[in-house]
């Protein structure tokens, strides 16, 4: 069997058993990337030379014996907003086009300690702002299931790379759905952990109260496996939670959903939901019931407020976080400016693309004198109401099941000129970030046009095990994960 077709966990078992070397793994993925990357365009930077060196050093150090670090020898792709020491990290922005981080993000330090192999850095919407990768300064990635369609965003490069077997697994980041939506569009598994479950140190900040790093993988087992390798408290991120990390793979032992109460929020099945998506998700809910889950209709009444709340809070935080790009300490600097103010203004004009500017403008406006209470303060209060909706729901149920997106992957350019329509397509994913709870997106079928459709399971804070258990039971009882895109 070809190495690139194996799941992360299958490859780990083969590597641990000594059946395959790191050098063979890198060679196999090099060939695979060579075959499909010109069509998929998942990567911004391929670490071709350094990964060969990493692999041969690893093989040399392992002569004759095997240790069992989970990610040892595992070829991963990393979203290009996560800092990798010595490997260019661009955020898909001209602003950071030449930025080589002098340090690793904590998740990368953890993977490096375990002996992972960095295949490269994957494409995203600039500074993770977008739902299609069309906002990348390096051009969009394409959906492996249909190259005319977007892969989703912002972690579109990571999801496309996993779907196209251009890596064994990938890391993404999720501020309003940026892991789950591209995972749904590309037919792979994406997990947004509880806020605080994974360190954000070295994740280039977009909206600090919402951002979270998580795995994008070929199946649910891989999701559990990779989450375990990156989760945990970090003294370098004071918003990371000091909560023990369980063995997530152990959560996958049960193959039924007995005694699990699963809520279906009526607000997520309202008008605007694509009929193929509704049909597919409703069939998946029937399957969850057949597996022993107790299905219950619930309400999340403030769902309609989520998009407006999110785009006030996320842009406000972004306008503050992106103030650091001033052309002084790192990144782009505009040429021939006469004073410091002009240096700032021109550097930011040249370095940021349209969506980033739009969000900085919106965020600056809602924080400005005279509007702060009406917009920012109001949105923070409505965020509390949205959290309370989830808290109330989780009194009654253990899990919530919803669609991930209102439609399957759309065509390039379909929403590029209408930012509000693009924002509204995030409706099913963003309330999860506002509430800080964990959620997983996994394949549950296909549209009539042959595009993947995702199922979202939402859990209580720090109950990723429940999510993984239910997702695994569903995955095992269906055949979706065996379907692979034909890239042409």
């Amino acid at each position, binding site marked *: 069997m070809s190495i690139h077709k194996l799941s992360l966990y299958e490859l780990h078992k083969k590597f641990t058993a000594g059946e395959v070397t790191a050098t063979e793994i890198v060679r196999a993925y090099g060939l695979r990337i060579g075959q499909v990357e010109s069509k998929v365009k998942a990567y911004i930077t391929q670490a071709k030379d350094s990964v060969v060196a990493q692999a041969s050093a690893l093989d040399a150090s392992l002569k004759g014996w095997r240790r069992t670090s989970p990610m040892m020898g595992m070829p991963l792709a990393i979203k290009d907003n996560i800092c990798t020491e010595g490997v260019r990290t661009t955020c898909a922005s001209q602003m950071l086009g*030449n*930025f080589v981080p*002098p*340090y690793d993000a904590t998740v990368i330090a953890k993977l490096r300690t375990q002996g992972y192999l960095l295949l490269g850095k994957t494409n995203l919407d600039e500074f993770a702002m977008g739902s299609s990768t069309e906002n990348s300064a390096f051009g969009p990635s394409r959906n492996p299931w249909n190259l005319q369609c977007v892969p989703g965003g912002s972690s579109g490069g990571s999801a496309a790379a996993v779907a196209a077997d251009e890596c064994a697994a990938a890391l993404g980041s999720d501020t309003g759905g940026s892991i789950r939506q591209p995972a749904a569009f590309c037919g792979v598994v994406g997990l947004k952990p509880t*806020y*605080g479950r994974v360190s954000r140190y070295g994740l280039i900040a977009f909206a600090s*109260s919402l951002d979270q790093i998580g795995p994008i993988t070929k199946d649910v087992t891989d999701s559990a496996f990779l989450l375990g390798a990156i989760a945990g408290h970090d*003294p370098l991120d*004071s*918003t990371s939670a000091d909560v023990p990390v369980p063995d997530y793979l152990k959560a996958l032992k049960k193959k039924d959903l007995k005694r699990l109460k699963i809520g279906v929020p009526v607000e997520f099945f309202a008008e605007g939901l694509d009929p193929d998506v509704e049909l597919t998700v409703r069939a998946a809910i029937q399957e969850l019931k057949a597996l022993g889950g107790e299905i219950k209709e619930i309400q999340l009444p*403030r769902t309609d*407020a989520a*998009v*407006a*709340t999110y*785009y006030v809070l996320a842009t406000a935080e972004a*306008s503050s976080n992106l*103030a650091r790009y*001033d052309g*002084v*300490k*790192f*990144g*782009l*600097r505009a040429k021939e*400016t006469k004073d*410091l*103010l002009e*240096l700032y*203004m*021109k550097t*930011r*004009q040249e370095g*940021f693309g*349209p969506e980033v*500017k*739009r969000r*900085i*403008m*919106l965020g*600056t*406006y*809602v924080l*400005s004198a005279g509007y702060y209470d009406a*917009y920012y*303060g*109001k*949105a923070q*209060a*409505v*965020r*509390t*109401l949205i*959290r309370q909706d989830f808290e109330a729901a989780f009194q009654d149920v253990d899990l919530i099941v919803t669609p991930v997106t209102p439609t399957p992957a759309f065509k390039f350019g379909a929403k590029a000129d209408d*930012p*509000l329509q693009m924002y509204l397509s995030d409706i099913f994913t963003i309330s999860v970030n*506002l*509430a*800080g709870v964990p959620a997983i997106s996994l394949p549950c079928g296909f549209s009539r046009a042959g595009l993947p459709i995702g199922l979202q399971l939402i859990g209580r*804070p720090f109950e990723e095990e429940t999510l993984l258990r239910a997702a695994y039971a569903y995955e095992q009882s269906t055949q979706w994960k065996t379907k692979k895109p034909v890239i042409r």
Partner: protein
Amino acid sequence: MDMTKQEVEKVAKLARLELTDIEKAAFTKQLSEILTHVETLKQYDTAGVEPTATVLGQVNVFRPDDVRPSLSVERAVANAPESADGFFVVPKIIEDRQPL
């Protein structure tokens, strides 16, 4: 909520963004549409509701103020667009003043 071109220009200056006329026109229209959608939040009664700034309910996190290893000067300025002798170089900030 309609945003005027003058407001767009004011916000752009606050955000230290130089905008082209095309960008100003596009943002005037698009930000007005987005803010109109944001106005829908008014229908939610938030009297007496505590704002959420973070979901974790954490308090301040302290650590001892010890000297620890940090980036060398060379590495710290390695990504700078312009540096000299381990310093960041910027345009002159303080104007010359005539002696009193």
